């Protein structure tokens, strides 16, 4: 009941085009996930262009905010600016805010929000990532946010078909269990309840009862314990049973893994300037140089990792 998309830019000349390359990928998977979408974009401090990311340029930490409740975002923005200017910069989104702040203020800002604006949820924090989550058709979300103008070096997105009547952002991917760590999942885990109980007993806190969040938190635990991305991904694959394609991004790279039966679709394109992954081939069809790219479907139980510097598996 969803589609996943990932795009890692290798050629810096393509970074200004990240958004314009990403949007058709997301739109191609709109039917797979017509109810809501979540998009994460990673950019350097010196990101160019206009738009919300540009105003964050130079901030040490980005905090992405969203909510299921109808929040008066202009008021939140005004309040944050009043309280935290000039150290924090706030950028308005159609359905949320992006806040840029120095590291030492980031925690304070989140505590403040928790007290003053309890309906506002922190979707993500990190030095590079900004996250949007919205309900409605993905194409509309993309145009509402003028996503095609966004610049950066890495993006991951998820389009969702809801099973509940209320489509909540809290259940939307990507899950961001640690700074700059995004997890997007297509499929379903069959033993996640037990894994969640075990992680809870280790002190891990969960925001939802969603199976995907369990994978995200497990991954974060392994990374915090010192595993690299490939090892941590392998851990998740071992612990969790079921059918899944996982796309995981950090500030420095992207990884993809599928379960042993690989029933949830995935295709990868490795080209000179980028690495792209999507649930269907046709989401990759418009990418530049696709005709000469190495296009393949990830093999079951193999962890594919690309880092920003090398971007080879």
């Amino acid at each position, binding site marked *: 009941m969803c589609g996943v998309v990932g795009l890692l830019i290798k050629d810096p000349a393509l970074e200004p085009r990240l958004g314009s390359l990403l949007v058709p990928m997301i739109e*191609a998977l709109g039917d797979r996930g017509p109810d809501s979408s979540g998009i994460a974009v990673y950019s350097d401090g010196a990101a160019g262009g206009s738009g919300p990311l540009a105003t964050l340029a130079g901030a040490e930490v980005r905090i992405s905010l969203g909510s299921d409740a109808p929040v008066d975002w202009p008021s939140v923005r005004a309040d944050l600016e009043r309280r935290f200017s000039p150290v924090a910069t706030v950028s308005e989104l159609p359905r949320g805010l992006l806040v840029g702040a120095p590291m030492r203020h980031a925690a304070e800002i989140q505590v403040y929000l928790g007290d003053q604006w309890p309906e506002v949820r922190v979707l993500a924090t990190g030095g590079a990532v900004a996250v949007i989550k919205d309900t409605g058709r993905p194409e509309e979300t993309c145009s509402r946010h003028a996503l095609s103008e966004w610049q950066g070096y890495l993006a991951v997105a998820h389009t969702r078909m809801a099973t509940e009547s209320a489509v909540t952002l809290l259940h939307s991917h990507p899950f961001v269990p640690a700074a700059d760590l995004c997890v997007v999942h297509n499929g379903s885990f069959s033993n996640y309840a037990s894994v969640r109980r075990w992680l809870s007993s280790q002190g891990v806190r969960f925001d939802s009862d969603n199976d995907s969040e369990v994978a995200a938190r497990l991954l974060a635990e392994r990374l915090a314990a010192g595993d690299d991305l490939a090892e941590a991904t392998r851990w998740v694959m071992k612990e969790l049973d079921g059918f899944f394609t996982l796309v995981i991004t950090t500030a420095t790279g992207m990884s993809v893994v599928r379960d042993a039966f690989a029933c949830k679709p995935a295709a990868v394109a490795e080209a000179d300037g980028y690495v792209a992954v999507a649930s269907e*081939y046709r989401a990759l069809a418009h990418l530049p140089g696709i005709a000469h790219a190495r296009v393949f479907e990830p093999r079951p139980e193999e962890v594919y990792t690309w880092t920003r510097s090398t971007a080879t598996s």
Partner: protein
Amino acid sequence: MDTLDCDVLTLRELNRALRSLEVGSSVRLRNPGGRHNLAVGLETSVSVTIEGNAGYFVGGLCGSRSDAGPDITVKGFVGWSVGENLMSGTVRVRGSASQSAGSSAHGGLIAIDGDASLRAGISLKGGTLAVAGDAGAMTGFMAQAGTILVGGNVGHGLGDSLYEAVIYVGGSIASLGADAREEELTDEDVLEVKRLVARTGFDHIDPAAVRRVASARSLYHFSTRHHGAY
């Protein structure tokens, strides 16, 4: 040749137009854009060329027991289940195919010039699947009848739970599935592969050098001694 533009027509309009073609006529589909369900349910001998990439179920539910069936060519890649349940006719993919290529095909030929993915030829029921390149894991899963030819390498679990279908592999086999075994190539096999090579133009395949995989037939009757194999 007539041309239909997928950018302009809806899926229903496209398929309706294809269905109403006169027997023996040809048509070209432009701008397919990875659309799903193109050229579905065509019974008769019409020729359809899709100029670009298609999505799932291209050429699905085509042909019939009494007709020669359509001739469908895709000049690009295809998504899952190309030619699923084909009864007769040909579906040719110039690029690669995603999972379950030729699923449950009863007759006709599905030919992939590039690679096929996981579960190629799953549940095959008498049709023929030919792949010039590699095929993924669990190729020929529960294939009941028909022929699968793979020019390149195949992944793990080849021919798992195979019934009477026969699989020929030009390259390496990562591992065999439950109840699948490699058998001696007979003269008939070589002839069969030769015919397929001629039909598909996959002349990089040496008919005398392929490996034959068929069912060991030891799971045809239930026994709990096989519990590990199920």
